[in-house]
């Protein structure tokens, strides 16, 4: 090295990336300390989408909270619905009938496929693989159509109720799902061939955004981020809920903890989720989808319009809310991005006293600086893409 090159002045440059950056899907700000293009430090600012989820829930009845949960992780709102309903049912001590539990498993897995497709498709298209991105969005669209056919909405579904689901599956549901999964498999196959051994994609993804296993555990990461480092922690396996213990599925794990492993984890999980959906549809029992308990279930419309008791019953549930006994509980489900927990405190009565969500994205953003430190500024894009930060859940 020449002498004059050695003492070239190197200033640390501060750069603010975000809050509205075209390549980061989500409102978030990174305050970067750069040396050339190398990231020395990254301070993550979240909260741009904070709307007071906890405080709003304290004003709402137990049933009115369900639409709020849709808006947490809107890429997998069905899982949020299921998690919240299960937490309240745990507090009540109620168990839903088998058919309802199977339906909840099916919709959770469909939502998980939706979530992973969103994450992988967006991350691929941000790296220039628009074709693969569009294939995944097409697959996602097919899943959305099933969800729309089932719930009447595409994103904010509000399908699950405390003590059941809004209504039973439509008659052609199993057929629709079987056809859709066939197409999704074909599309994923194409994506796999387009991406998994693609030189450009590999160069941008592998050995980028690495986090070690110890650090991942220390940062409380969960979901694909943690599994990519080799830790086999999946709430569906470790703390089985619903009827997950009756299905045959694997938890894909990575080894290096980089973006490529995260991507592969998510792709494999889509396959496992499809497997679960098919098993659940094959075993789907017949029977009611609501618990048999008039304290939590709205009466049928004929009774509401035809008898004074029914009308009063309906009025009480709507106006006062269902009555949940005093107590506190924590219930976690495996969301698209990791452990999605609901901590609920009830003082008795129709409204929650305290509602808290353990947001996997928010916790992942707490470790983000660790994932990008030492890499180039362009590496933020794939790393952030594979974290799959959803503002609604991160900022609540």
């Amino acid at each position, binding site marked *: 090295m020449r002498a004059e090159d050695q003492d070239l002045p190197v200033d640390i440059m501060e750069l603010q990336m975000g809050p509205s950056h075209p390549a980061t899907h989500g409102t978030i700000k990174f305050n970067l300390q750069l040396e050339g293009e190398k990231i020395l430090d990254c301070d993550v600012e979240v909260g741009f989408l904070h709307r007071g989820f906890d*405080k709003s829930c304290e004003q709402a009845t137990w049933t009115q909270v369900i639409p709020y949960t849709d808006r947490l992780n809107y890429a997998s709102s069905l899982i949020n619905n299921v998690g919240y309903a299960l937490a309240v049912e745990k507090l009540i001590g109620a168990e839903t009938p088998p058919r309802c539990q199977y339906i909840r498993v099916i919709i959770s897995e469909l939502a998980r496929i939706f979530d992973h497709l969103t994450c992988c498709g967006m991350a691929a298209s941000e790296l220039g693989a628009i074709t693969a991105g569009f294939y995944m969005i097409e697959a996602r669209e097919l899943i959305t159509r099933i969800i729309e056919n089932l719930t009447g909405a595409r994103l904010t579904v509000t399908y699950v109720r405390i003590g059941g689901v809004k209504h039973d599956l439509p008659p052609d549901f199993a057929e629709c799902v079987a056809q859709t999964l066939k197409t999704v498999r074909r599309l994923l196959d194409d994506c796999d061939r387009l991406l998994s051994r693609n030189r450009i994609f590999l160069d941008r993804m592998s050995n980028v955004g690495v986090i070690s296993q110890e*650090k991942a555990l*220390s*940062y*409380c990461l969960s979901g694909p981020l943690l599994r990519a480092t080799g830790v086999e922690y999946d709430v569906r396996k470790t703390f089985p809920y619903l009827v997950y213990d009756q299905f045959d599925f694997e938890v894909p794990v990575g080894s290096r903890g980089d973006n490529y492993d995260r991507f592969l984890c998510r792709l494999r999980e889509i396959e496992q989720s499809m497997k679960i959906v098919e098993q659940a549809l094959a075993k789907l029992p017949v029977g009611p989808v609501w618990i048999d308990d008039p304290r939590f279930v709205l009466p049928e419309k004929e009774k509401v319009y035809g008898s004074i008791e029914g009308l009063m019953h309906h009025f009480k549930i709507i106006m006062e809310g269902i009555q949940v006994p005093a107590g506190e509980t924590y219930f976690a489900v495996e969301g698209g991005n990791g452990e999605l927990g609901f*901590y609920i405190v009830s003082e008795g009565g129709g409204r929650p006293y305290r509602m808290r969500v353990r947001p996997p994205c928010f*916790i992942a*953003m*707490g470790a983000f600086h660790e994932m990008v430190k030492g890499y180039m500024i362009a590496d933020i894009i794939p790393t952030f893409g594979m974290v799959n930060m959803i503002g609604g859940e991160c900022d609540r």
Partner: protein
Amino acid sequence: MPESSAQFSFIQDKLGAKVVDIRSAQGDDVLILNRAGLRDSFLVLKQEAQLDFDFLSDITAVDYWQKKEPRFEVVYQILSRKKRQRLRVRVPVPENDPAVESLTPLWRGANFLEREVWDLYGIRFTDHPDLRRILLYDEFQGFPLRKDYPVNLCQPRVPERKIEGTFVDERSANKLLRLKKTLGIKN
């Protein structure tokens, strides 16, 4: 369950007087701890092979305003992946000195979670490396998740912050001036 009662007495032995109460309620194991020496208590829970609660799941708080004394409770959800067990640790915190020890030396993920509790409840975490507001902005007055904070309270609009040492493009500044002149806008 006999298993958990053996574990309960083990925790009681190890932590001694720091344990206020330990019980199973509504399907969850709940441990209520004194806030004195909190980090050491968590170190025992984390490192003792018989307990092995090595994963911090969540930190939050609850405000029992006019319902309970002491007013606040910081709530930790920890779990053992190997033993497939969860434990909820509740730490009562009085209103006149809302502070507990930070767990960031044990779990680095506690950083963001504790910042959130500080932001929304105003409970300080001693020895926290970077206790700033996180979801709200620095100029925000009060702590919104406290029960005595009204739901519909409006905060005044914050004037634009002056940031020192930022790069100003003079050409675009002049362009803006010209534009204002043509539109007849005075500063």
